[in-house]
């Protein structure tokens, strides 16, 4: 049987990229680093108690009293396990990855909703991005961006972006045809149609995409810690490598609490508007 050296081709391509776009990757790296550090600085400068109260208040407001109380208690528990700083590092990474996924994903989703050709091309690409074992992204990420939080963020964006693209496109395509016709019949331009009708009506679906993206980002926490992203992933890794079951459990519990808090809040954002 003939062996097709696909792996070699990928290596050649990656080499070519690093040779020719070193400056480009350097720029991205710096920008990402600055963003992550910025988030981290903000999250860790705000005092623990205040941060817990802010989260609890937001959760209470969008998702009701129960979720608000749960959020307050959960975050307080994280603090009492002395994992607050690690949690805020992780939250900074997740925030950065999610923000980038939205900035790229929403316009891409809008474009995809308008073009059947692009839709046909992107669908398999998105499936690929999401089903490829996430570890695989670590290699090129490290290759281009060294170790640290930046390659972690990049791998996370690639893995976590598909839902936002897909659901933005789906949400826009689901806007009833008559409503689009109505808007056009009153003389909307295409941007009026987009901003006054399509995006608002697609918003619950787009927010569902945001929710999935955040959860997928959190699922990358441990994986990206393997390339030095730090945060809660690091705590879990330490638990594994040093056989410290208690530490591993606490780190894992903190990830779960953060995930539940972010999930409940974003989920209810979507439902409020529906």
């Amino acid at each position, binding site marked *: 049987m003939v062996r097709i050296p696909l792996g070699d081709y990928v290596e050649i391509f990656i080499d070519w990229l690093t040779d020719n776009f070193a400056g480009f990757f350097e720029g991205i790296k710096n920008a990402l680093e600055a963003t992550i550090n910025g988030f981290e600085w903000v999250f860790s400068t705000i005092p623990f108690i205040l941060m817990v109260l802010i989260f609890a208040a937001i959760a209470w407001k969008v998702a009701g009293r129960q979720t608000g109380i749960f959020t307050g208690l959960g975050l307080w528990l994280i603090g009492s396990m002395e994992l607050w700083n690690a949690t805020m590092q992780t939250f900074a990474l997740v925030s950065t990855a999610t923000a980038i996924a939205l900035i790229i994903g929403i316009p891409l989703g809008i474009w995809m909703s308008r073009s059947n050709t692009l839709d046909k091309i992107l669908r398999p690409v998105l499936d690929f991005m999401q089903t490829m074992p996430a570890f695989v992204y670590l290699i090129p990420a490290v290759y281009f961006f060294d170790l640290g939080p930046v390659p972690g963020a990049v791998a996370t964006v690639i893995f976590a972006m598909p839902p936002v693209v897909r659901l933005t496109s789906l949400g826009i395509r689901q806007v*009833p045809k*008559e*409503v689009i*016709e*109505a*808007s*056009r*019949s*009153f*003389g*909307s*331009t295409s941007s*009026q149609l987009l901003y*006054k*009708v399509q995006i*608002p*009506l697609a*918003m619950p679906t787009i927010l569902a995409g945001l929710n999935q993206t955040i959860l997928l980002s959190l699922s990358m926490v441990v994986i990206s810690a393997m390339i030095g992203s730090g945060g809660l992933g690091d705590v879990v890794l330490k638990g594994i490598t040093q056989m410290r079951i208690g530490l591993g459990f606490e780190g894992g519990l903190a990830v779960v609490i953060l995930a539940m808090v972010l999930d409940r809040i974003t989920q209810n954002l979507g439902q409020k*508007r529906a």
Partner: protein
Amino acid sequence: MSKVEVKNVYKIFGPTPQNILPLLEKGTTKNEILKKTGHSVGVNNASFSVEQGEMFVVMGLSGSGKSTLIRCLNRLIEPTAGQVLIDGQDIVGCDKNTLIEIRRKKMAMVFQNFALLPHRTIIDNVAFGLEIQGKNQEERKEKAQQALELVGLKGYEESMPTELSGGMQQRVGLARALATDADILLMDEAFSALDPLIRKEMQDELLSLQVKMQKTIIFITHDLDEALKIGDRIAIMKDGVIVQIGTPEEILENPANEYVREFVQDVNRARVVTAASIMKRADTLVSSKEGVRVAVRKMKEESISSIFVVNKERQLEGIITIDDATEQIKNRKENIEKILNRDVQTVSPDTLIEELIPMVLNSRYPLVVVDENRKVLGIIFKASVLAGIIGEEDSDG
């Protein structure tokens, strides 16, 4: 100049519509074209014009091309060929910005499933067209408010569309169209999604709004009763072709072909045919000036037992009977005023047979058809009502 003029409009769906045009001109049918070329004919050579203030109804069975035709008028669907003139300006050839201007200023559309924006309050829905035009908040609010009041939804400004019943939602749809002050309303099966009672109510309301506003309305329906009730003129479509255009009565009286005849044969004529088309000419009237003797002579000539009395403007005064008249002549006290019975049942020319039936049954005399100044237009006998229902009235009305 007509408000809307449609000239030889075609719409063919498929990859190469232009190639299909010659086939249609040769008379190939929609079915053959679909089989041979896979193209679907939506509209086939439609031409008509609609005057300012007219209510023009397009009706036909499902798939006959009504929705396609009405969407060609504002180019929600791009016609394959032909012209659509709005106030004399061809919109098929015009550029994008002109089209947007025309959509904003000249026409507004009402949709079968209301097509409201679910995330906006009622008032913001109604103001949508104005917002698109870039009108400021104050003006939007004021005009939207007026339009809401016009359709009887005052007090619902801050409700959300899902909180309203279907009928109310369609009032919102109508208000949204009225708020822009467009002269032309395009209504695609606007009442078809409503249940029958609400539907009838909306029809009545549209008619009474139309009296006030005199819009040019193009109204699509697949329901003949609705078409006959609200249409000034009706176009009947089949397979993309307009097979007949006429007033409701013309279409009932002279169906252009078998298709139309089948359509109209089940119509309840009592709900369509009006007093104007079954009334007899009022030949035998007597002027109050002419006096009792002339009246008696006329009655004898026509061998009738009573006669209507009018003044010199032909306005109805009342009726006198031959018995009372001959009595007066015998007593040499001729005075038409004394024997004049002013209690005569009158009707307007657009009264439906349905409404005439109880009147004609309860009245001792024939009914008199009068215009708004009580001028006599014609007379309706019991027999003419009956003939009108079964469709055999002769045409001297």
